[in-house]
């Protein structure tokens, strides 16, 4: 119990509570259950993507192509729906996940088989995927009136007071808790990030594990692509522009170490919620939404400084004392 109180998750939970209390002291309507549910739903895409990004970062990689993947899949789903309104939502969901997974696999193969640094691969695919949206759509928008009611209705479908979008985020989070704690793949993510050399000796294929992380991240980006386009009932080239940074920010704030191998699923979810609450609270407390970017930037810097303090490597200390004795 005391270990939990000292943990990153507890500090984040405290920060979120303080934040909510501050907002509630001036604007009590913000913390009403219906509004909190709205905030959670609004943050759901960020939570889903951040969970995918978490496993990628755990394996010492980074995926900057998630927002472009999301936008491309979303555009394909929207165009398919506009062209053939008869295609059932289940088929579109399947298509979205499969398409996203393929795009993730492209990233993964280049990291696994060609050993190209992940940041280079995903910076490249980020622009390629984003450019492809323009190529397939010719820069045109797919608007609400071109989408079928079933297509746009799915993420808003209400179950027990929460829309489907929020339930999907909860489901994905639950699956991640099980996968991370209870499956060999989940443990492999930590092993690969914590010590790739040792992971090889325990029989873990480092490249393959990183590949799997990219496939998971891509599949979730694809899924979110459909949900995003359906929820906002519009698809165009620039949707979710720059969202990859918010996703990385959520992970870093949640305590996922960029050096790999450290961090928890709960941390990521809290990190995403923290950003989501800030984003939704800004207009309520009458701060221009133009502040959002600077605030998330500051949050990233503070969080990474915090991460580094709590995880100073012991190897460095030994070196320093040896230097002192010499």
């Amino acid at each position, binding site marked *: 119990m005391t270990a939990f109180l000292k943990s990153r998750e507890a500090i984040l939970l405290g920060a979120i509570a303080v934040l909510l209390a501050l907002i509630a002291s001036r604007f009590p309507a913000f913390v009403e259950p219906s509004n909190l549910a709205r905030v959670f739903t609004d943050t759901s895409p960020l939570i889903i993507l951040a969970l995918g990004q978490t496993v990628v970062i755990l394996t010492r990689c980074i995926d900057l192509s998630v927002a472009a993947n999301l936008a491309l899949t979303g555009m394909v789903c929207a165009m398919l729906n506009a062209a053939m309104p008869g295609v059932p939502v289940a088929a579109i969901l399947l298509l979205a996940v499969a398409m996203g997974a393929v795009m993730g696999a492209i990233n993964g193969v280049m990291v696994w088989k060609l050993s190209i640094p992940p940041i280079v691969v995903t910076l490249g695919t980020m622009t390629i995927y*984003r450019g492809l949206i323009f190529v397939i759509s010719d820069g045109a928008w797919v608007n609400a009136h071109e989408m079928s009611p079933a297509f746009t209705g799915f993420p808003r479908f209400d179950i027990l007071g929460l829309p489907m979008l929020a339930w999907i985020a909860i489901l994905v989070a639950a699956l991640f808790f099980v996968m991370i704690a209870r499956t060999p793949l989940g443990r492999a993510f930590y092993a690969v990030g914590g010590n790739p050399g040792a992971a090889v000796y325990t029989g873990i294929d480092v490249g393959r594990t990183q590949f799997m992380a990219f496939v998971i991240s891509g599949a979730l980006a694809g899924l979110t692509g459909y949900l995003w386009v359906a929820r906002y009932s519009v698809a165009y080239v620039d949707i979710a522009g720059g969202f990859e*940074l918010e996703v990385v*920010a959520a992970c870093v704030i949640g305590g996922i170490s960029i050096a790999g191998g450290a961090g928890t699923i709960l941390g990521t979810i809290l990190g995403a919620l923290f950003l989501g609450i800030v984003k939704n609270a800004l207009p309520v407390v009458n701060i221009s939404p133009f502040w959002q970017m600077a605030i998330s930037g500051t949050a990233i810097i503070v969080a990474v400084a915090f991460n580094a303090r709590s995880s100073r490597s012991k190897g460095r200390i030994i070196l320093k004392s040896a230097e002192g004795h010499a």
Partner: protein
Amino acid sequence: MTDAASPRHVPNRLQSPAARLLKSWEVLLLAVAVAIFIANSLASPYFLNAWNLSDATFNFTEKAMIAFAMALLIISGEIDLSVASIIALASTAMGAAVQMGAGTPELVVIGIVTGLLCGAFNGVLVTGLGLPSIVVTIGTMSLFRGISYIVLGDQAYRGYPSGFSYFGQGYVWWVISFEFVLFAVLAVIYGVLLHKTNFGRMVYAIGNNATGAAFSGIKVARVKFILFLLTGLMSGIAAICLTSRLGSTRPSIAFGWELEVVTMVVLGGVSILGGSGTIPGVVIAAFVMGLVTFGLGLLNVPGIVMSIFIGLLLIGVIALPRLWQKWRP
């Protein structure tokens, strides 16, 4: 006579300097540049025109200035993704100064000082607190441009003094623009700095083995701090040129440039893992990217489709040599 007497074939493992040069990345890149040049002149009748070619240099001069400093930074094993946001912040600072009646000399000082301050901020976070540069600069990328958004919102600064337009629109002689001259001078300065000075050797040493460099007496943190400062300075100078060329400042100015700068550096043969790369390589890469963008522009290819080519170029130049090594018999 058996064939035992015939001389055994000894592979010539030590290549002559000429052969090594011929196989080098820079020469390969130069061949690509020439090929693109020829392809462009065949594809569009407007390409081979002194003024058009002069216009084409504006596609890369500002980015290349940053790329020189970024090359040193990446060779040392760090990266700065906030460069485009530094441009936005420096440009916003200059725009705000104009509203308060600043003249051209003040604007230049403000642009350069803003760049240096941003670089110093990155440098302190990375070297002072020992944080990973990729996350720090993703954070400052958001922060710096975020400040521009707070100041400007959906507004824009205009009304720059007429003398200020020289930096981005002036010509030194005939078709040779001021920006191109600045680019050439900076290329020489950075080439000398990296390849002919102690400082340059320190940068390579740190990139190859930072611990080893520290034990051989190199002040690793200080060198890296200077490199962040230089990258900030170059971003400030690029901000002056770009603002002068556009004549206005919006918070979205130079959006996405960090990607193109990193692409230019990597395309120039600098290892993203640090430790190797040259300034001539980056210079040729700047021309390659400028020619590709300009040639596609003459063919009326929209900007976002060009970015597909840039992305493919970035991945292609790294993937092809690795594929070649993998599948070579």
